[in-house]
């Protein structure tokens, strides 16, 4: 057995505490919003009332979509990408700037990006395509804080780096008693023991999950920003293109023939060919290079169905004119180390490889991690609320507790309120949609934070944030039924499973939260009841 000196224990304990308390509130926001992001696609379907029945690329009519795009703009010589980032009725379309400036294409032409509904071919810009799902997804890596460059991403990255630090130091600190303390829960003991037991037990239970999220999170958000500058200057001597090519991030280029392609091209054929070429292949995107040019090429990209293979990236590149395959990357065999490692890191983070059940488990573990964060803050608070601590410091600690708990716990009612308010009042799919969602969420959040901080009572914050969130949450399926007519029994009988999932989630989640919240009782008699926990205790 490894022996740890008191010095090592205390130093690591201290660094665990400090790194934990500094990142706690932001980390809570990341975990809370991130947990909801597992259901991003379902949330979007629910919000737009667009059930996803058939949306796979092979079912789309690319010819018709291109005809629609053709109206009002010249597509000749552009690269056009259709990609399916999420399960939904809308597909992302990326148009590059035209590569050739012919006589009729004068004037400033830029690339553009939008979403197209696969049924009625309506197009949406980024802002009009915005949704609660997208909002919560982006909140979980603090995109809304990108006020100065990519400052939000950087903060999220630094937080996940110190989260990794806190996870590892936490394990070392608890190492000696890691087995025994896992089984300890003393509900009748002092508050400090309760928070400690909960923090340790859930921390160990969620340890693999939290470690995975710390590593994959920091990889996804800042690995390029932080790790690439020295690599670029030493290894590649400033050649960015070469580095991206080596890492498989580069783009293909095909030269333009500068002559229009004769005859009609059936774009659906490329997808059909790919499908019959590889069964069990999930097509993620179709990229058309040099549209309408004699040297047009079409790349069909994707990965194996997750039921067959966990990792792998595949691609077929066709010559647009002859239709023959000029390049093949087999998704099932000889997966490179880079594709494999990237695939594992993405799959583990997105949790999208095991169906809805796995995402529910991931969601529960995510919320459990929120609890680990909060109980950590409460240990910090309770441990410092002692008579021998300076009054000035104690006052600061108490305020920190009130503000932190208000920020964290308000997220639940604010999220429930956003679902409700967007469903009831935001029906326009225009550029104002993004602003409306921002305002609804952030003002609701601010309102609850101010309310709970002003009350200066952690017990009140805890109990009433849960009750308010649960009451608002139980109204979410009701609002959806009134507005869209898609009541739970309707979506159930029609098989709109994605919409049903969100309604069921709010219904069960809210009832569960409510039943827990009403049983919460202020315990005045608890041994060493910390003053910070309640103002009344101070008066008593």
């Amino acid at each position, binding site marked *: 057995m490894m022996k740890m000196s008191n010095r090592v224990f*205390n*130093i*690591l304990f201290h660094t665990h505490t400090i790194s934990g308390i500094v990142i706690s509130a932001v980390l809570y926001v990341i975990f809370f919003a991130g947990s909801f992001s597992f259901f991003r696609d379902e949330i979007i379907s629910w919000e737009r009332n667009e059930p996803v029945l058939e949306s796979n690329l092979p079912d789309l009519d690319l010819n018709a979509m291109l005809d629609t795009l053709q109206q009002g703009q010249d597509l000749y010589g552009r690269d056009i990408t259709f990609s399916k980032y999420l399960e939904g009725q809308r597909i992302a379309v990326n148009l590059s700037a035209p590569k050739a400036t012919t006589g009729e294409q004068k004037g400033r032409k830029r690339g553009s990006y939008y979403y197209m509904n696969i049924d009625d071919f309506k197009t949406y810009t980024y802002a009009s395509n915005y949704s609660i799902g997208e909002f919560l997804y982006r909140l979980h890596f603090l995109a809304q804080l990108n006020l100065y460059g990519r400052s939000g991403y950087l903060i999220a990255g630094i937080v996940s780096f110190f989260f990794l630090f806190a996870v*590892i130091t936490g394990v070392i600190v608890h190492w000696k008693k890691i087995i025994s303390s896992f089984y300890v829960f003393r509900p009748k003991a002092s508050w400090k023991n309760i928070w400690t037991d909960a923090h340790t037990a859930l921390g160990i239970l969620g340890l693999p999950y939290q470690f995975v999220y710390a590593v994959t999170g920091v990889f996804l958000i800042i690995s390029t920003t932080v*790790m690439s500058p020295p690599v670029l200057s030493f290894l590649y001597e400033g050649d960015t293109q070469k580095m991206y090519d080596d*890492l498989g991030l580069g783009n293909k280029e095909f030269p333009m023939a500068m002559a229009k392609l004769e005859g009609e091209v059936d774009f659906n054929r490329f997808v059909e060919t790919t499908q019959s070429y590889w069964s069990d292949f999930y097509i993620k995107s179709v990229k058309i290079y040099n549209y309408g040019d004699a040297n047009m090429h079409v790349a069909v990209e994707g990965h194996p169905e997750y039921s067959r293979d966990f990792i792998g990236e595949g691609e077929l590149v066709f010559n647009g004119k002859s239709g023959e395959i000029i390049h093949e990357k087999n998704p099932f065999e000889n997966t490179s180390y*880079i594709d494999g*490692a990237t695939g594992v890191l993405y799959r583990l983070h997105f949790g999208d490889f095991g169906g809805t059940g796995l995402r529910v488990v991931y969601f529960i573990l995510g919320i459990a991690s929120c609890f680990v964060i909060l109980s950590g803050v409460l240990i910090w608070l309770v441990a410092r609320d002692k008579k021998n601590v300076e009054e000035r410091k104690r006052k600061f600690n108490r305020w920190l507790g009130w503000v932190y708990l208000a920020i964290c716990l308000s997220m639940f009612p604010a999220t429930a309120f956003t679902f409700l308010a967007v469903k009831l009042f935001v029906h326009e799919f225009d550029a104002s949609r993004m602003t409306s969602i921002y305002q609804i969420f952030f003002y609701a959040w601010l309102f609850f934070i101010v309310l709970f901080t002003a009350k200066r009572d952690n017990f009140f914050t805890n109990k009433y944030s849960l009750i308010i969130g649960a009451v608002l949450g139980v109204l979410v399926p009701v609002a959806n039924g009134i507005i869209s007519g898609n009541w739970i029994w309707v979506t159930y009988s029609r098989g709109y499973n994605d919409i049903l999932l969100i309604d069921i989630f709010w219904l069960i989640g809210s009832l569960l939260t409510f039943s827990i919240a009403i049983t919460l009782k202020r315990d005045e008699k608890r041994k060493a009841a910390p003053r910070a926990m309640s103002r009344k205790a101070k008066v008593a």
Partner: protein
Amino acid sequence: MPANKKYLTKSFSQRFAKISAGILGGYMVTMSLHLALAYWLNHANVIMTLRFVGFIIWVALLIIAFLVKNGWKTWGIYLAITFVFALIMYVGKIYHPIP
């Protein structure tokens, strides 16, 4: 119970040395290790590894920096290790240049 203060670093210069050695020095060791390996192994794979394993190594070096009694000594060791890896890089660049 908060950590026992008698084991914690009190002097400002020592604290500064430990934190800066852990963060900056740790970064230098992590980067130079992977750059040195990149010249001798498949460089693209090493860079990919750096992008996720690098953070774990960096965190480990940060923890070690807090544990060593003298923060300036940590700086010295981390700089020395970086220097050794830089030498390996230098030799690697001569014999196995990146194509």
